[in-house]
């Protein structure tokens, strides 16, 4: 059935409105990052700065070790993403293919574990990491990020594994492929989009995380980007808005770049995970 032109136009208009809604905070950030202080105090702010300036970026870099903090964030986020995927993938495979009671119990526990708020776990976690001498270390923070993102990563990947028809693995076995060969040559390529989407989820979660990093890291040299960004904010929510926007804009770029690189795989992965075969 063909869609009427008016209906199609309406669909595009709704889509455009949704895109504007989603892009609004980012575009506002971009605009603010290039505005001089006097334009920030205007009653009628404009999208395009009258006198665009790079002063906010200069000030942000002068005042805070943004590059070092970004490197710390990158190490922790990449570490968390890689380790979470390495652990979650085989677990997800077992849970999806062998529907035994331990697998069902594990699935239930994964869902329940999502209900615990940060504040409930932070002090016990702090004490455990202190005993392991992992306070004030990026290794300790990465470990926390892995643990924090693992349940959801596992949950996502179980969906992706279930979307890969088991008949394909059976066909490979009939053709003489062993278990390992089947996993490497048949299942893994089909799971790649799901793994990419899961890795991106773990990366972005760790990249944006603030509270664990704030509490677990003491040395200025170990602080991550979200923690450093708060140094532009003072008491009662007063902020050094220009440099904050400039630094926050730069902080969003890595996530956007990673997303752009993995976009096609992720889209495929999301569809694979969403549709029941």
């Amino acid at each position, binding site marked *: 059935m063909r869609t009427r032109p008016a209906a199609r136009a309406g669909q595009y208009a709704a889509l455009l409105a949704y895109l504007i809604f989603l892009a609004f905070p980012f575009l506002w950030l971009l605009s603010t990052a290039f505005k001089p202080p006097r334009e920030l105090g205007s009653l009628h702010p404009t999208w395009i700065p009258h006198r665009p300036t790079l002063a906010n970026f200069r000030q942000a870099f002068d005042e805070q070790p943004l590059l070092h903090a970004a490197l710390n964030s990158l190490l922790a986020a990449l570490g968390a993403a890689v380790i979470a995927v390495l652990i979650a993938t085989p677990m997800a495979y077992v849970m999806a293919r062998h529907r035994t009671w331990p697998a069902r119990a594990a699935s239930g526990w994964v869902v329940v574990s999502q209900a615990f708020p940060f504040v409930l776990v932070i002090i016990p976690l*702090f004490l455990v990491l202190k005993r392991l001498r992992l306070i004030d270390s*990026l290794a300790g923070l990465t470990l926390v990020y892995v643990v924090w993102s693992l349940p959801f990563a596992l949950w996502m990947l179980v969906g992706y594994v279930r979307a890969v028809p088991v008949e394909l693995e059976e066909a490979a076995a009939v053709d003489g492929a062993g278990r390992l060969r089947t996993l490497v040559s048949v299942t893994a390529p089909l799971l790649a989009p799901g793994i990419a989407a899961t890795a991106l989820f773990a990366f972005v979660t760790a990249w944006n995380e603030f509270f664990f990093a704030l509490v677990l890291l003491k040395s200025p040299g170990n602080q991550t980007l979200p923690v450093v960004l708060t140094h532009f904010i003072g008491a009662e*929510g007063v*902020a050094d808005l220009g440099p904050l926007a400039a630094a926050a804009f730069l902080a969003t770029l890595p996530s956007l770049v990673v997303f752009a690189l993995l976009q096609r795989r992720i889209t495929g992965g999301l569809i694979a995970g969403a549709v029941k075969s």
Partner: protein
Amino acid sequence: MAVAALLLLLAGCSSGGQKEGGPVTLRFQSLAWQQESVAANKELVREWNAAHPDVRVEYVQGNWDSVHDQLLTSFEGGEAPDVIHDASDDLADFAYGGDLADLSGLLPARLKADIPQRSWQATTFGKGVYGVPFLQEPRVLMANSVWLRKAGVRIPTPEHPWSWAEFRKITARLSGDGRYGVAWPLKEPVSVTLNLGLSAGGTLFQRGSDGKVSVRFRAGDAVVPRTVHDQVARDRSAPASTLGSGGSDTLPGFFAGRYAMVPLGFSYRQQIEQQAPKGFQWEVLPAPAGADGLTQGVSPQTLSIAEDCPHKKEAARFIDFLLRPQNMVRLALGDWMLPTGTEALADPALHTTDRGWATGTALAARLRPAPAQSVRGYPEWKDKIATPALQEYYSGAIGLADLRKRLEKDGNLVLARYQR
């Protein structure tokens, strides 16, 4: 293998601990955030380290928004900074909880004598002193100079301030045609109301002979809330739209000539200086006075020492260095605030009329510890009872009798739970 390699790489990026037998290392967590303030703090730490090779201070920047949660976790884990920058209204739980060191026997006589007793009261909990109050800011009226002079109103000074009634009349006179005499940014209505309420003799929290605290909303407590309410709901000399705003949110309207005055903390002058359009003429006026003159409550910024700090004497020496009169002036100028120290307060740099420094300095003697900062259960009373009740009253949704009933009846039920 890959996992192990990655963890090793990450572990290699972590900082090492303190070397055995080396100089003492103190971690100083500062909440300074404005460019000049951070620079002043870092410079002072550099000077200390240069002069004291045996006691090395490491500067760590924290932030106001999350300092309470961060300290709470750090204290529980025994990993708190040695020297802690905070505000007096955040210290009660840590002081009573045994997380902060009692500074009574640690501080030198010079520092104790330099800071007035009224400021020490803000950091005294029970019999101990748990922080050194060093910076504070009164709430003042940021005013559009041209507008006020064109209107021909009397310009108040610390010697001859407006009364609350006069303030109301003047804001009504300045209003009209979509313009307002004042804009009240009351995102945090409780602290503003209680702190300014001291000027009219408002005390709200009464401590009985049994030591228990109860809320009693009396005539003095009603002066400030009624003025704000009447300006918003009766005179239309203050817009209702800013009642939920933070101070920064009102500045664009102030610059654009929509509001003649905005009551803000003294340090907001830095933002005004930075963001005001060229040629915009503004000045600092004292907040209105009541039966108790220009008295108002403040929560000074403080420096404390963690109870777990193994080098308390060295930490106290560092605090003493940081708060020498000339250093206190540098910190005050960096933060656009007033120092608590008597000697620092006498510095000529803080008595210039430029950017309203002289007006603020003249108010220093009238600043008192914010009411209720040591009352157990105050945070819950503030969040669950007082904030919604004041917001509804200011917007005109309820009257003064309802406000009184909620603050007293509902409020005392909350406080009673903490005082059994």
